[in-house]
């Protein structure tokens, strides 16, 4: 059984009148430990796919089995639970909570799964160490560089031992050198920790870090290459 099993998934929006089919009968399987890049021009459906993959959205039709569980029909609360335990998000704009230090930002996912304060702190410190931010625990986001902020976001994504990390243009706001460092971090997490990493990007350089490239166009998968 693969970690991600998507069968015939459609996602239709009705922004008023004409329905827009953002995803059109998409089927794909992904194994645990994969490092994949999702590419495609804007409007190709890759963001919608990402939202469904990350359990932020549910398909209009079709089935999505995550780790053997059918998440396509789950209630919003159950989806929140899945997001909190199985998926870590990394965004282009970092999406850290302002005026809240690095440590507390990393602790955030654990606030919602009932971990005690001491345990939260221990795990957050450990995650910050993994991303190389030891000593920056008390810094607020505005005191950190873009690369450092993205590292905090990555620490937040791995702190709950999520098996999947979904990164949406994670280097989009960073310079090439820092972007490269962030990509190296993803590679390390993939190799050393066995994390399944899925990165949405439109840069070929970034996609080159992955071992599989999935291309989207007009709501369909038009290419799926492995290296």
């Amino acid at each position, binding site marked *: 059984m693969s970690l991600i099993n998507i069968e015939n998934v459609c996602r239709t929006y009705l922004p008023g009148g004409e329905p827009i089919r953002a995803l059109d009968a998409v089927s794909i399987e992904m194994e645990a430990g994969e490092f994949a890049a999702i590419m495609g021009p804007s409007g190709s459906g890759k963001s919608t796919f990402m939202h469904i993959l990350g359990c*932020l959205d549910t398909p209009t039709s079709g089935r999505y089995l995550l780790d053997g569980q059918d998440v396509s029909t789950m209630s919003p*609360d159950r989806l929140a*639970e899945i*997001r*909190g335990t199985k998926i870590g998000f990394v965004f282009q704009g970092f999406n850290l*909570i302002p005026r*809240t230090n690095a440590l507390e930002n990393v602790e955030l996912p654990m606030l*919602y*799964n009932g971990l005690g*304060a001491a345990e939260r702190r221990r795990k957050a410190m450990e995650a910050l160490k993994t991303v190389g931010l030891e000593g920056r625990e008390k810094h607020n986001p505005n005191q950190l560089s873009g690369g450092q902020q993205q590292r905090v976001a990555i620490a937040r994504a791995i702190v709950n031992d999520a098996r999947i990390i979904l990164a949406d243009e994670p280097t989009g706001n960073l310079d090439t050198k820092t972007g490269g460092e962030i990509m190296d971090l993803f590679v390390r997490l993939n190799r050393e920790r066995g994390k399944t990493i899925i990165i949405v990007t439109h840069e070929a350089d970034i996609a080159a870090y992955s071992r599989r490239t999935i291309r989207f166009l007009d709501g369909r998968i038009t290419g799926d290459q492995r290296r």
Partner: protein
Amino acid sequence: MINIPSTVKISLRALMVNRMRSVLTMLGIIIGVASVITMMAVGTGAGRKISEQMATIGSNLLMVFSGAATSGGQRMGAGTQPTLTVGDVEAIRRECGAVEDAAPLVNSTMQVVYGNQNWSTIIIGTTPNMLDIREWGVAAGRPFMEEDVRSASKVCLLGQTVADNLFGGMDPVGQTVRIKDVPFTVIGLLRKKGQNPSGQDQDDTIYLPITTAQKRLFGSTLYNMVRIIFIKTRSFEDLEPAERQVTELLRQRHHIGPRQDDDFSVRNLTQIMQSAEQSVSIITALLSAIASVSLLVGGIGIMNIMLVSVTERTKEIGIRMAVGAKAADIRFQFIIEALLLSLIGGMGGIAIGAAGSALISVFADWPTIITAWSILMAFGFSVAVGIFFGFYPAYKASLLNPIEALRYE
């Protein structure tokens, strides 16, 4: 699972970020709670003052006034036409089941002289049981007895005010005072009683046997006549039956026909006081209700600011949802925030209300009493306001779609 300490910490930080805004929002609750506390303190103080004054008259009292005199077409006040007699008093004591005791009273304002001092005061002629009925007694010396009434002896009891004015610091017991040139031996000094509810000094008086007053002071026309009868009943519940029984008995004794007016009037002092007390508590409730309108306005202020806060923090809500916060977690966070606003405001209001009540006591010389109940009520009210007005913004926040919330800039 909801993590209360962390949620409170997050909420406090959010409130601290917009310190000025938070304080201004709290102001509505502060003013509301402070005014409710102050109004209740003022009302409770007034009620207590009335009860205290009521206790000085004596409890469970009826007063029967003799009829009004008509002089040249003008009807004078109650008690001006003596229609009651000592016999009436005896009959009331004997025949009215609800009456515990009754005492006659005749009074007049006269000049009292001691040495080179003189003082105008109310001379009251009565029987010894009057002191029991009025729950009064002597501070020094002895009260007069039945024998004094029977023999119309020239003895008297001085009220504190009279004693102070005639004797200064000296002990008046055993001295002789003159009223209308009649010498009276002071046999006792009455206990201090203070003002009655209408503000009259009850210590500015001299008590003497009714017979002595009638024979020696008030002239023969009033012989055997009584101005007022004081009646005490066993309990508050007996007041009304006693009033009925006394009215019936006196109409009979005074031969008043079915269609004729009474030539006396019965006043139920305790009931009058009770209703005064009641109106004070109604006014208190009314003032508090008006004050609590500002609590309502404060609550709306909280709702308004919470709605702004939810909009401002849409992205944060999206982030929290992405990392696993459920609708209930988000709801809880914003309700806690609203609750903190109203709770802190409520506590500030209690402090300011207490200070305001103290100031009113000092500067307006009005007794104020802050009860645990009023504090509890104000506190509970502010909690309720926080939860009630915090709920809608919190609910709105929890309904956000995580994808759209994350996109919000």
